[in-house]
Each structure stands twice: as structure tokens, then as C-alpha cells.
């Protein structure tokens, strides 16, 4: 007689598609986000194949433009932004605050349907011929001249934005109003703090890109003049409005991953986080200061030099809370009882690669240097170090860490270690050469390049192939674990947290009655005091 858990409580498509259970919604998101990751990866593959040779011989320039555009649009809006919050956040936040569900379960389900609808619009745009504006939709090209289905793609982004807004709204209300008795703010897991900060950005920033892409669509369809220079419109205004959201958006992508790392580092060093309140407040600081730096994307586009100086200074400031986290994770690991299970391998990868990505961000924040490397592969390498070396590694680490909780199964640890190493190797081989190529002058978004850059590009494409294999293997062993993996106990890792107290997989209601919490969820008992506990 199988015990009732959220996975077997109700069978059939309707019980999944009409569910109000945050855990099932998280699984729905997991499946759709994985699908979009594969689609975005497909576009990346075509880009890297074209760049094997200096000549533009695989794709026409127009098609190549569509490939990197669709890669960006799909990866940013349909993979990175929802990834951790919609899967791990949805699954864990109610459990971590001791609640039975999020504040608004039906809105949670609605957010998934909105995400799928936006995805359909974007796929229709892709299949009808694609968009070639870059994921940044810069005007006046996007409004007046672009070849392709700009309106459909812009509407797809617009619609999906509401999914993000509703998720953030749900998290904010849940964390404020549904914490269990005794669960004060400073007893919350850092995963919750980072998602709270992320939700602030989702709620405050996403509406601005919503209105901006709507204006692009309206201008293209109705020939309004808001960004049209021939009527006195200002393309730089578009960039201001676009980046007002899109810079904080990158913090939407990284903050949840940082929350994951905080959890993993404590579990696998078996030690409380060093400087809990600093790490908690640094999430808020990143979220808030992140709204003050958007102009660093517009240094060379026509913004005033004075504004550039202000934005440059603030961009240096925003690095400080990130650095605080890196120092605190390191101090946590120091003198901990460290084990190198696969989640921890991803965490180590994150800490190193995020540091490199963040440092190169500081290089770009220096206006003088930015003039030289703007629109080169240096920028491409910088943001991939953060997005892929950082965010995706955090996502994978979190998936591995909480997989036993979500699925009730243990995956193959040797294969997990192997693919983590493949990902790390492949990633660095893909993107480190791009720093060099960019610094030496190779522009981004070009399908042909001077022959002296070929070696770097071949190395990069080789790395991308290895990286792709590293991403495919987890798909296989996770799926395999679902059918033939060993069943998990409540707490396979010996970790601390409300989620590890309940069964794997959890029952639909999470808790029978509200748990009463008496201490911080991160108070790890030192191994020397563990004698007699088991």
C-alpha cells in the first residue's frame, strides 16, 4: 500500500493540468522549462556551428541573426528568468515557511498557463520565420525595418512577463503572511531571502519591459512615432526603458541561484552559514541597487557622459553585496566537514565561475574599457560566465540537491559527478576563449569574422559540444531514477531545514498542522555533537 504523496494523490491529465498544489505546478514548470532549454540550446548549436569557420558559409547573415536572437529570447525569458523560482521556488517556499501552499494557488497555476501561452507565441514567431533584432529588440530597427515576426515575438515576451509578475507577487505575500508560528524573518532559510529579493525585482521591474515591448509592437503595427527618429522619437529612450528592467532581470536570474548555493554550502560543509544576516541583507541590497545601474548598457549609445559616470560608479557599488556572499560562502566552507557530492561540485563551480563573471562585469563597468570591448565577445563571455557558469550551475546544483525530495528517488551519483565535471570543463572551454576573442576585437552578432579568430572559435565550439553532453546526461539519469532509482528517505543528505523533516516526496498538504519552529532553520549541529543523535 503506497503512502499518499503529492505525486500519486490523484491520477490523470486533469489532476495535473487543473492542480492547485504548488509542488505539481513546480513539476509542470520543470517540464516546460526543460523543453525551452533544449530549444534555446538548439539555436546556440547552430550559432556555434556557423562560427567554426571564418566565412559565413553555413547560414545567411539574416538567418544567423535570427538564430542568435531566438537563442537569446528563449534562454532569457523562457529559461533563465523562470528557472529556479518557478521550479525550486514554487516547490520549496511553502514548505520552507511551514505553509500548506502559496498564498494564491490558483494564480500560481494561472502563471504557468500564461508562461505556456507566451511560449507558444514565441515558438510561432520562430517557426514562421523568426526574429532578427537580437533579444534586445533595439529600435528603430525593430519598429521600422526588421525582417521577421517582431510583433509575435514581442507579444510572447509581453505575455510571459505576467507569469513572472504573478510568481513574484505570490512569493511576496506568502513570505510576509504565511510563515508558521515561531518562524521569524531571521530564522528563514537563505533560499527564501534570495527569492524574496528576486520577487521584489519581478514585481517592480517586469511591468516596465511589458509596456516597452507592447510599445514596440504597437509602433510596428500602428506606425506610431514614439521611437521613430524621423518624427522626433528617441531610440535611446527605448534603450533606457528596456534596460530599466533588463538589468534587474539579470539579478532575477542570479539571486535564486545564490540562494541555492547558500543552502548547498551549509549542507555539504555541515556548518552554519558564516554571516547569515549579511548574506540575507546582501540579497536585498543586490535587488535594490540593481535598479540603479541600467545605464551601463548605454555607455556608447548616446547617453550623456555625466549619466554614464553615475551609472559606472553605481555598477561598482552593486558588486559589493555579491562579493560579500562569495566571501561568506568561502568562510562557511573553511573548517567545515566538506563532502564532494554532486550538488557541492556544482556549488564550487558556481563560486569560481561567478567570481570570474562578476569581475569581468566590473571591467565592463569602467567606461574607458567598455568603449573598447562593447559589442564584442568580451561582453558575451562575461554574461555567459554569470548566466551559465553561475545561474545554470546553481540550477543544476539545486535540482540535484532537492531531487530526492521532489521525486522521492536517488539519482546515480557517479554519473552526476561525471556530468558535473563535463559541464565545468565544457563551459570553460566554450567561454574563456571568447574573453580573448572579444578583447582582441571580435565583434558579437557577426556570422563571419577575420581568420585570425578561428582557433578561438573552434575551441569554443568544441567546448560547447562537451557542455551539451554534460547537460544531456542528467536528463537521462534523472529520468532513469524516476523508474528505477532507489527510494529516498526524508533526509538523504543529513541536511537542516523544514523540507528535510517531511517525507520524500512530500504529502500534498506538506504539514498536517502548522509546524511550530523554535530555532533558525540553519542551526547545524557540529559533527562532534552528533554522537547519540541517530
Amino acid at each position, binding site marked *: 500500500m503506497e503512502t499518499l504523496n503529492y505525486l500519486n494523490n490523484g491520477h490523470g491529465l486533469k489532476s495535473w493540468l487543473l492542480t492547485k498544489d504548488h509542488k505539481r505546478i513546480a513539476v509542470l514548470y520543470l517540464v516546460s522549462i526543460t523543453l525551452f532549454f533544449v530549444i534555446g540550446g538548439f539555436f546556440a548549436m547552430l550559432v556555434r556551428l556557423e562560427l567554426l569557420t571564418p566565412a559565413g558559409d553555413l547560414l545567411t547573415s539574416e538567418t544567423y541573426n535570427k538564430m542568435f536572437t531566438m537563442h537569446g529570447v528563449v534562454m532569457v525569458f523562457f529559461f533563465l528568468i523562470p528557472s529556479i523560482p518557478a521550479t525550486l521556488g514554487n516547490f520549496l517556499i511553502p514548505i520552507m515557511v511551514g505553509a500548506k501552499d502559496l498564498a494564491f494557488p490558483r494564480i500560481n497555476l494561472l502563471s504557468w498557463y500564461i508562461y505556456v501561452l507566451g511560449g507558444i507565441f514565441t515558438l510561432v514567431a520562430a517557426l514562421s520565420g523568426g526574429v532578427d533584432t537580437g533579444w534586445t529588440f533595439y529600435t528603430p530597427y525593430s519598429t521600422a525595418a526588421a525582417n521577421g515576426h517582431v510583433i509575435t515575438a514581442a507579444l510572447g515576451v509581453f505575455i510571459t512577463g505576467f507569469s513572472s509578475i504573478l510568481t513574484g507577487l505570490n512569493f511576496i505575500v506568502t513570505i510576509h503572511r504565511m510563515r508558521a508560528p515561531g518562524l521569524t524573518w531571521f530564522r528563514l532559510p537563505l533560499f527564501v531571502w534570495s527569492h524574496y529579493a528576486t520577487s521584489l525585482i519581478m514585481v517592480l521591474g517586469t*511591468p516596465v519591459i511589458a509596456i516597452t515591448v507592447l510599445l514596440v509592437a*504597437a509602433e510596428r503595427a500602428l506606425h*506610431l*512615432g514614439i521611437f521613430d527618429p524621423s518624427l522626433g522619437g528617441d531610440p535611446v529612450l527605448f534603450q533606457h526603458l528596456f534596460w530599466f528592467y533588463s538589468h534587474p532581470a539579470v539579478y532575477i536570474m542570479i539571486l535564486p541561484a545564490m540562494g541555492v548555493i547558500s543552502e548547498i554550502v551549509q549542507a555539504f560543509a555541515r556548518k552554519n552559514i558564516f554571516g547569515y544576516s549579511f548574506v540575507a541583507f546582501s540579497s536585498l541590497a543586490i535587488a535594490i541597487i540593481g535598479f540603479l545601474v541600467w545605464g551601463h548598457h548605454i555607455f556608447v549609445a548616446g547617453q550623456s557622459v555625466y549619466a554614464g559616470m553615475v551609472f559606472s560608479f553605481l555598477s561598482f557599488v552593486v558588486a559589493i553585496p555579491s562579493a560579500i556572499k562569495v566571501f561568506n560562502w568561502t568562510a562557511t566552507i573553511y573548517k567545515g566537514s566538506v563532502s564532494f557530492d554532486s550538488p557541492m561540485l556544482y556549488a564550487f563551480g558556481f563560486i569560481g565561475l561567478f567570481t570570474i563573471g562578476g569581475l569581468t562585469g566590473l571591467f565592463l563597468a569602467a567606461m574607458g574599457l567598455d568603449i573598447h570591448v562593447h559589442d564584442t565577445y568580451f561582453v558575451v563571455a562575461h554574461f555567459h560566465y554569470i548566466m551559465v557558469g553561475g545561474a545554470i550551475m546553481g540550477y543544476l546544483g539545486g535540482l540535484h540537491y532537492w531531487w530526492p525530495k521532489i521525486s522521492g528517488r536517488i539519482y546515480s551519483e557517479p554519473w552526476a559527478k561525471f556530468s558535473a565535471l563535463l559541464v565545468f570543463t565544457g563551459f570553460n572551454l566554450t567561454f574563456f576563449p571568447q574573453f580573448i576573442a572579444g578583447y582582441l576585437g571580435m565583434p558579437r552578432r557577426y556570422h563571419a569574422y577575420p581568420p585570425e579568430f578561428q582557433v578561438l572559435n573552434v575551441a569554443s565550439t568544441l567546448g560547447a559540444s562537451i557542455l551539451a553532453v554534460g547537460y544531456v546526461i542528467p536528463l537521462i539519469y534523472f529520468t532513469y531514477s524516476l523508474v528505477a532509482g532507489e527510494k529516498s*528517505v526524508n533526509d538523504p543528505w543529513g541536511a537542516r531545514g523544514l523540507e528535510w523533516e517531511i517525507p520524500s516526496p512530500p504529502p500534498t498538504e506538506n504539514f498536517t498542522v502548522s509546524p*511550530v*519552529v523554535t530555532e533558525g532553520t540553519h542551526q547545524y549541529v557540529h559533527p562532534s555533537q552528533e554522537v547519540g543523535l541517530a
Partner: protein
Amino acid sequence: MPDPHAEHFPGRIHQPPLVANLEAIQPHDQIELPHHPKLQHHFDDMAQQIEASTLGMWVFLVTEIMFFGGLFAAYLVYRHANPEGFAEASHHLNVTWGAVNTIVLIVSSLTMALAVRSAQISAPPKTQVAWIGATMLLGATFLGVKAIEYADKFAHHLVPGPNFRWEGKHPAPAEIFYSLYFCMTGLHALHMIIGLGIMTVIGIMALRRTFDADYYTPVEIAGLYWHFVDIVWIFLFPLLYLIGGHFTE
């Protein structure tokens, strides 16, 4: 059935439980305590439910502030760049219609607030419906006036695009002004229409005797939305209709 406290990885000993009340984490049948019929099961009590709902609507309104905010920011930039052009373009808007609509919306906010109050004091359903109906009537009036104004713009070639014609000194800023006019008032009107839809649902619920002093959350949060739409217009009216000091009667 594996022992929930067994070790999976050797040497990884289970941490002591976090919760003071262990029954929270024991598998158990759910006990259904007596509660208000409208209490959703994931909330502890009605107070938590109304607090969460109200906070949720406020957070949503913040997103709406930022949504309209993009248009206001564009307005700010272009008016700063073209002060005379915007003033000249604004002269063609009919201040009387704009002022009438402002009054209409303010009255509708009053009736909306009184509708919420009528639910709070458990007034008879027909009183609640009367206030809700009055609000909707005023909202529809607003939209009617906007339709008249839009028709006038179409007739005078003031719709941006290939048919735009401007006789004054600043044609390019005028076209931008009217682009913003249509986007801002159009988005506002769309929100008004959605508001009417929401109020229809609320009206039907009130007719069915759903609301009283113990439960009026949907009316309250519908009211918040309605007042927000009013506030947007409170700013739109002077910014669009009253620039430059001259206006047609």
C-alpha cells in the same frame, strides 16, 4: 517503507528535528475543523485570508504603477524635449470632456467606496448591488465620453500614422503627443473595461447574498483596483488636457 530516519549516505547523520510540535510532520489524516465556508484551506483563518488578499492586490497595483509608469516616463522625456509642441498639441483636446470624465470617475470612486462599506455593514444585497451598479454606470459613462473624443480625433486626422495631419507649427511633436495620448488613455480605457468586467462579477456575487461583515474581501480588493484606475486618470487629465493654459471650449 524506508525508515524516515535512516541514513542514506553513510556517516551522514540526521539532524535533530526543527519543529516543536512533531505531529506537524507525522503522516496523518487531515482534520476538518469548523470554519467559515469561504475560508480557503491553505489559510489558517479568515483574518490571514483577507490580509493576504489585500496585500496581494496592493502588490499587483504596484506592478500597474510601473506598467503605466513607462508611458509616463516617455511623456516626461518628450515633453521636456518639446514644451511648445506639446502645449500646442494639447490645445486640441477638449477640456470640458476631460473635466466631465474626471468628475465622473471621482463620483464612481465614491460609489465604489460606499459599495464596500455597504458590504462591511451587512447592508441588504439590493443596497450593495445599487452602489455597485451606480459605479458601473459611471464607468460606462466614462467610456462613452472617451468614445466620443476618439471619434473626434479620427475625424480631425489626429490619429498617428499615415493619416496624421497637423496644421500647427510643431507637427512632429504633435504626432508624438497624440501617440502618447492614445497609448495612455487607451491603456487606461482598457483597464476601465476590465474593471467593468470585475464589477459585473462582484455584482452577481452580491446579488447572491455572498457578502456581509464576515466576508467582503472580493468587494474590498475590487475597490482597490477601481480606485487605482481613478488615480491614473487624476494624473492623466492635467498632464494631457491642461498643458499650456489655453483650451478650446
